């Protein structure tokens, strides 16, 4: 039997284990298994990497992190060994779970064509935790995703933050309503209705924000779904995730955010390297496009060095896998960070853009993003430098559970 075939069988077996009898995997280790992860190099992202490090996991949380010499592993702990250990990876912006791998109408739920401005659409009402693309990214060490409605309408809906493991949406979800997905630029134009130009997009967005301001000032504010969610935006409880690739759209995003004193996160930002000073001055964080995104259109000036140039300007940067309408249906954020690491970012900077810095921009750094006592036990294991094309992810731990042990 060929090696390819056996590895295929193994993968299928694993999928059956996941799909049909999840409990079997969990029973293989205690429900919240007490695990010790030993790594020749442990990137904690909360200080310098540890050589010959140990991470102790208890009840789904990190119990201790340190050198092998300083930590005694209790005898009843299952020991997992890896060459390189990192925090579970965070994909700072994707659409998987709403959009599926089949790319057929029934599994594409990240864009409703019915309106240009629909911030009331909740990602949690669409999220499919069994989607195969979630399993795919989990096998590469991705443990947290910021996912939701896709770019390509002025406001396409809400985003959510989830772990890449969970029997149902409630179990997977960390933040049910994270941000509102807004797009500025040619991608936001609708066919046959407004907006049809950049200026109209800005005008419509302003009108919605004014409406929200006025509603908030009323004695009895309107309670419809859109009013409720826009009220949270205007009160700075929820940021707009503004996808803007071209320089003029990035500037429009910053301008409108200032006008209304709302919180925003800049998304995509292909031209960011050309206006890094302006972005830095705005103080907003950036979830930069997939490094290997295709150039063209609003992304004509895309560069592999964008993340490095933004970071060098002092801007907080996370890297995303992004939205794909075709093949591949999802990118792997590990590879996108790898390409950034080969084009200006240091290894540590690139890793931080998919761990702790991503967590900070998403506002979840108290739970995930680094290996520190008390944080969720989300860990990725590799048999070498995680960024090398030829390295494998050898295991993924989420909430203290070994949820993937395929060699990927």
């Amino acid at each position, binding site marked *: 039997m060929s090696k*390819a075939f056996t590895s295929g069988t193994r993968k299928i077996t694993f999928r059956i284990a996941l799909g049909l009898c999840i409990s079997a995997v969990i029973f293989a280790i205690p429900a919240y298994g007490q695990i010790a992860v030993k790594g020749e190099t442990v990137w904690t992202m909360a200080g310098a990497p540890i050589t010959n490090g140990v991470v102790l996991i208890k009840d789904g949380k990190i119990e201790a992190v340190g050198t092998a010499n300083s930590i005694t592993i209790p005898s009843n702990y299952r020991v997992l060994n890896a060459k390189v250990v990192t925090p579970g990876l965070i994909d700072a912006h994707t659409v998987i779970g709403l959009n599926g791998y089949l790319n057929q109408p029934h599994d594409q739920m990240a864009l409703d064509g019915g309106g240009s401005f629909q911030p009331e659409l909740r990602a949690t009402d669409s999220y499919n935790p069994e989607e195969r693309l979630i399993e795919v990214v989990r096998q590469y060490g991705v443990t947290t995703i910021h996912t939701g409605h896709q770019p390509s309408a002025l406001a396409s809906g809400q985003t959510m933050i989830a772990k890449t493991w969970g029997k149902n949406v409630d179990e997977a979800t960390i933040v049910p309503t994270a941000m509102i997905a807004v797009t500025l630029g040619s991608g936001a134009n609708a066919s046959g209705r407004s907006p049809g130009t950049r200026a109209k997009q800005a005008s419509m967005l302003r009108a919605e924000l004014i409406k929200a301001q006025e509603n908030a000032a009323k004695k009895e504010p309107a309670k419809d779904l859109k009013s409720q969610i826009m009220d949270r935006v205007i009160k700075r409880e929820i940021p707009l995730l503004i996808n803007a690739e071209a320089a003029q759209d990035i500037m429009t995003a910053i301008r409108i955010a200032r006008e209304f004193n709302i919180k925003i996160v800049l998304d995509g930002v292909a031209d960011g390297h050309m206006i890094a000073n302006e972005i830095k001055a705005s103080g907003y964080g950036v979830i930069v496009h997939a490094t290997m995104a295709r150039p063209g259109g609003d992304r004509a000036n895309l560069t592999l060095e964008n993340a490095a140039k933004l970071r060098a300007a002092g801007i907080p940067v996370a890297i995303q896998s992004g939205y794909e309408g075709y093949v591949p249906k999802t990118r792997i954020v590990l590879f996108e960070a790898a390409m950034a690491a080969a084009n200006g970012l240091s290894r540590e900077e690139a890793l931080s853009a998919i761990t702790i810095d991503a967590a900070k921009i998403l506002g979840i750094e108290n739970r995930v993003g680094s290996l520190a006592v008390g944080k969720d036990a989300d860990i990725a294991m590799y048999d070498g430098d995680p960024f090398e094309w030829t390295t494998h992810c050898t295991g993924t731990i989420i909430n203290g559970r070994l949820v993937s042990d395929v060699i990927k």
Partner: protein
Amino acid sequence: MKKFLFVLLFLGGLSLFTFGQGRQTAFINARIIPIVGAPIEQGILIVQNGKITAVGDARTVRLSSEVTIVDLKGKVIMPGFVDTHSHVGSPAGADSTAPIQPDVRILDSVNPRALSLQRAQAGGISTVNVMPGSGHLDSGQTLYLKLRDDALKIDDLLILDKDGKYMGGIKFANGTNALRTGSGPFPGTRAKSAALVRDQFIKAQEYRDKIAKAGSDKPKLPARDLAMEALVEVLDRKRVVHFHTHRHDDIMTALRLAKEFNFRIVLQHVSEAWKVADEIAKSGAHSSIIMIDSPGGKLETVEIDYKNGAALEKAGAPFGFHTDDGITDSRWFIRSAGVAVRAGLSRDKALYAMTMAGAIMLDMADRVGSLETGKDADFIVLSGDPLSIYTHIEQTWVEGKKVFDRSRAEDLVFAVGGKGATDDGDLSHGAHCSDGGNE
């Protein structure tokens, strides 16, 4: 005045160029991966008049005093990559009038000045098979190009065979791309697709027979038919069929047709190659595979896997890689080899699949794909291990001329991107898909 200066500069450049070409250049001290033969530490590669005149080391190659020395200590030299399926130059082939259009030539469609060609050079690609899309059972004739610099017209990129004819294959496709239910002459099912292709090849056989029968009796010759002429070249095994196919059953159908009509076939994409690797090996067909980061995106690729390379290697089937640019980007074509090794392919075979395997598929085994005496001086200079993410392609040479140099700002932009790296021809794969084809 300006014009006059330009002419002077041009003439000066030309004489310098001619001088440079006539003289031997020796690239020394690099690790040379010749692909055919073992890697050479502190190797010597000698180039003259666009050809390789010697490959070896200090023990086997003597440097004459006339030679220009280029010291590449710490670098790696390997052959330029052969991309066996690309859409650089934004070509569009067949139109929407018929599912089979063998008369259409991509020659008449490629933009030789498109910046996508420059980006492909930055990715180390020196030879490329530019194809029309796959929204047809046959979308037209493909074109094999050398990515020479300063192309003003398509002729400047062509590769001529021994008879002086420009080289290329023909693109066929099966599976769902060509299916257009209820839409005129296009097929609605897989069986209909195969039937339509068979019909055309039978017509081509009859056309060929009529010509043979007419012999020198010109009035008896059938009326010239460009479509039939192209298919006769296929029947005569002069023109290779590049057959877009994804699913295991479609792969088998493509092989069946090749056997029935005895044409030479390169299986393109072959997303489910791992399911029928032994059958592919048995057929003797070459495969040109693509590395896609996640399954799906279209129904026929839900089972695509990085392990295709390893599976074909194990089965003993010849295969190479392709970019399908813009599906994957020419600039990081070498990544195909890296992720295929990740999934179990041997490192040697991975580099072979980037180079020599493609040369064989495109009938250029005697000219490109390896660093051997007498072959075209198509090579790349890398900063280190070709399979490492941290390695950069620093130079690309085509026929003894440097066409990409990362140390030059005007070239660097094509490697990393930024303002000026793209042009209108690149817009999101548009020209390629506008003919109804997807990959």
